[in-house]
């Protein structure tokens, strides 16, 4: 028997494992995907001319295996990280598509993430209570602030201190500074729209590795911007480069890969979970692992699937689901609401060197310094200002020496900004299990029923309007704009299916991320989120994981669980 089992090895699972191991627990991490080895499994050393198929995924592979993943950032050099949709199906209503973007391997989506790392604010933790949507968070910002710091120091977050209440500062490494085009953009926006700010994107890349990073073999970012292939330098935080090695050096970590969790074993006599049933993904043999405490970090939808599939006589609706909230309140950020423009007045004699692993960020201003135009909550923008790529002229007429001369020249300054909007928690946006279809391992398929509502639709329009206005205020002209948000799920920020809350009747988890009904079960992935904010959520998952691990170990030692 282990002291603890962590289901999932991604962003939150890696952090849970590290924190539990460092507190002396013998921990088993169960990963459904294959083993990846830090460095060895990456493709970051391929030169552009060495990447097969000019970096493109073969078209027949895309059509056969990646019908959903193909909507996201998959490319030839990263193809190995994306699940094959045909091997891992799920169901959606025809009129409500949901893009479930996944990576099944050791380290999960922490290998593939965008690394943007922002704290939620006091306003975010109070939002549900104030406007009545979703479950009131059982914690407030001050409860999580020290854990944000704890995680930021460990993973390394490059950022600038700005003193903004809606986007609290953290314990940062030096920021990746804005380039001259961005500084000009910033000056124009902040002059035209007092209350709006343009700041360097906060990213979990080591702008300056610290000794505790180097102890784990991590090095300073080399400004390659090849992060999506995996970083041999360990310059961005992932489970493979950072949290799992930290867990492993304690001597307390065991990892099992290729093991798909079927369900959790609930003991009605004790009211606790006693183990985890898995199916070997290759042999399909079943096995049960036992532990004193279980952390579910299988990702928002995966965690809901496991809970719903863990029915018993005592819990006929699924484990920890007396509230009927498991699977409900599925959220994702409004995504792909992008506007692009040319900045003809950009600084003509300026360029930059290196490929920065982040861009600029425009923190939320709607319902902060400016009113929402008929909608609740708000949005921030990610983007950048850069010299236009050599690719820009490909579609334009022109061949021969003229084409070569044109392509060689430095492009004009170009900007794109893309809004990330908060989606309200809505119990009708939910994950259930199919009653008729199972996957190749006999596990009921997930059914996802999720759509943007009126608040999201109003917000989406305003995101595009504000984006256009800002580019124009910077002296630019808009050359391209999205027309509507991407399909829900495409933001890859799914959250909410086992929400935290004060009331066991309306929530699944208490203020320690502990299931109201199952005291030795903790859930600290995106499922726990009672609201989504508009900030990229991984940092919050990790802070919740570290905090919950701290309390779980205390409860174990006190004999409470």
């Amino acid at each position, binding site marked *: 028997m282990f002291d603890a089992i962590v289901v999932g090895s991604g962003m939150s699972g890696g952090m849970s494992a590290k924190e539990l191991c460092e507190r002396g627990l013998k921990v088993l991490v169960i990963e459904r995907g294959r083993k990846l080895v830090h460095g060895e499994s990456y493709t970051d050393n391929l030169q552009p001319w060495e990447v097969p198929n000019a970096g493109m995924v073969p078209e027949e592979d895309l059509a056969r295996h990646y019908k959903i993943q193909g909507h996201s950032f998959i490319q030839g050099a990263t193809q190995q990280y994306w699940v094959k949709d045909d091997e891992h199906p799920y169901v959606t209503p025809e009129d409500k598509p949901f893009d479930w973007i996944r990576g099944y391997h050791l380290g999960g989506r922490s290998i593939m993430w965008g690394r943007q790392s922002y704290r939620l604010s006091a306003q975010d933790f109070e939002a549900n209570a104030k406007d009545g949507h979703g479950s009131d968070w059982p914690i407030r910002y001050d409860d999580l602030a020290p854990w944000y710091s704890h995680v930021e120091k460990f993973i390394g977050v490059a950022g600038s201190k700005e003193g903004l209440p809606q986007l609290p500062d953290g314990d940062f490494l030096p920021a990746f500074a804005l380039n001259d085009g961005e500084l000009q953009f910033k000056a124009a926006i902040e002059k035209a729209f007092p209350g709006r700010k343009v700041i360097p994107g906060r990213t979990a890349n080591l702008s300056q590795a610290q000794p505790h990073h180097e102890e784990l073999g991590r090095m300073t970012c080399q400004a390659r911007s090849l992060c999506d292939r995996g970083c041999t330098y360990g310059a961005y935080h992932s489970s493979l480069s950072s949290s799992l090695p930290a867990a492993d050096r304690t001597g307390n970590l065991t990892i099992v890969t290729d093991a798909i969790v079927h369900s959790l074993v609930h003991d009605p006599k004790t009211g606790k979970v006693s183990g985890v049933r898995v199916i070997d993904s290759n042999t399909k043999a079943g096995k049960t692992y036992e532990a004193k405490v279980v952390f579910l970090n299988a990702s928002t939808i995966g965690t809901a699937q496991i809970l719903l599939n863990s029915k018993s006589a005592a819990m006929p609706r699924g484990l920890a689901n007396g509230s009927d909230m498991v699977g409900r309140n599925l959220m994702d950020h409004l995504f792909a609401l992008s506007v692009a423009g040319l900045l003809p007045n950009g600084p003509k004699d300026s360029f930059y060197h*290196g490929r920065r692993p982040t861009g600029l960020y425009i923190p939320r201003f709607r319902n902060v310094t400016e009113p929402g135009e008929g909608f609740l909550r708000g949005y921030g923008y990610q983007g950048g200002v850069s010299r236009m790529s050599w690719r820009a002229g490909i579609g334009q007429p022109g061949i021969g020496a003229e084409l070569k001369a044109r392509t060689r020249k430095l492009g004009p300054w170009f900007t794109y900004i893309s809004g990330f909007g908060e989606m309200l928690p809505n119990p009708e946006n939910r994950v259930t299990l199919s009653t008729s279809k199972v996957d190749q391992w006999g596990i009921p398929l997930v059914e996802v029923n999720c759509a943007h509502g009126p608040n999201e639709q109003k917000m989406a329009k305003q995101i595009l309007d504000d984006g256009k206005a800002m580019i124009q205020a910077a002296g630019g002209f808009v050359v391209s704009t*999205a027309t509507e948000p991407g399909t829900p799920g495409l933001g890859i920020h799914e959250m909410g299916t086992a929400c935290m809350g004060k009331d066991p009747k309306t929530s699944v988890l208490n203020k320690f991320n502990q299931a109201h009904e199952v005291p030795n079960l903790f859930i600290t992935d995106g499922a726990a989120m009672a609201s989504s904010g508009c900030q990229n959520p991984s940092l919050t998952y990790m802070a919740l994981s570290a905090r919950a691990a701290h309390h779980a170990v205390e409860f174990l030692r006190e004999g409470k669980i």
Partner: protein
Amino acid sequence: MTTTSMDRRSLLEGALLLLGVTATAGFSPDAFAKAAASPKPSLPAGDFALLSAVADTIIPRTDTPGAVDARVPAKFDALLVNWAAPKRRTELTGALATIDRLAREKTGQGFVALTPEQRKELLVAHDVAALKPVPRTDKLTGMQAMMAGPAVADPGYAKLKELIVVLYYYSEEALTTELTYEHSPGDWTPSIKVTPETRATGGLGMF
């Protein structure tokens, strides 16, 4: 999936073969035929020669290597085998055939048999006509709507040209002479002064 052999040595041998045949801008039909001999492409020899002539016209050798020097035809041929679905392959070979047909209609000779100057004259006109924007007939949403360029009159030619250009600018030859590329820049410097020598940076990324 099969992989067309394109090891580094054969790339260099092919480039040297061509360099030995002619040293002036534009290659001869014989040179295109010889280049097709090793490694053996999937396209029939005549089609490969046509592809080579088109690639050479779009990205000719100047004071820097051109598409043929960078073995773009062989790489394009490999894409037809390893990347393109049948529909795409038909679209691309059809775009090549259209160029050859236009040459025959205008001059009575195939595109390969024309002089480099004739090839360029013909392709310049076709390039303008083929890339003329037309209204979209497909409905794109979200990021796709933003990323997609305008629909054009001849999408097959647009893709053909795009692949030739991209394969060239991803090549070691282009990234060391036409554009600049450092795989590991080492650090981020947010501001440097542009000089007459400053060239655009290359690589697989968008920016």
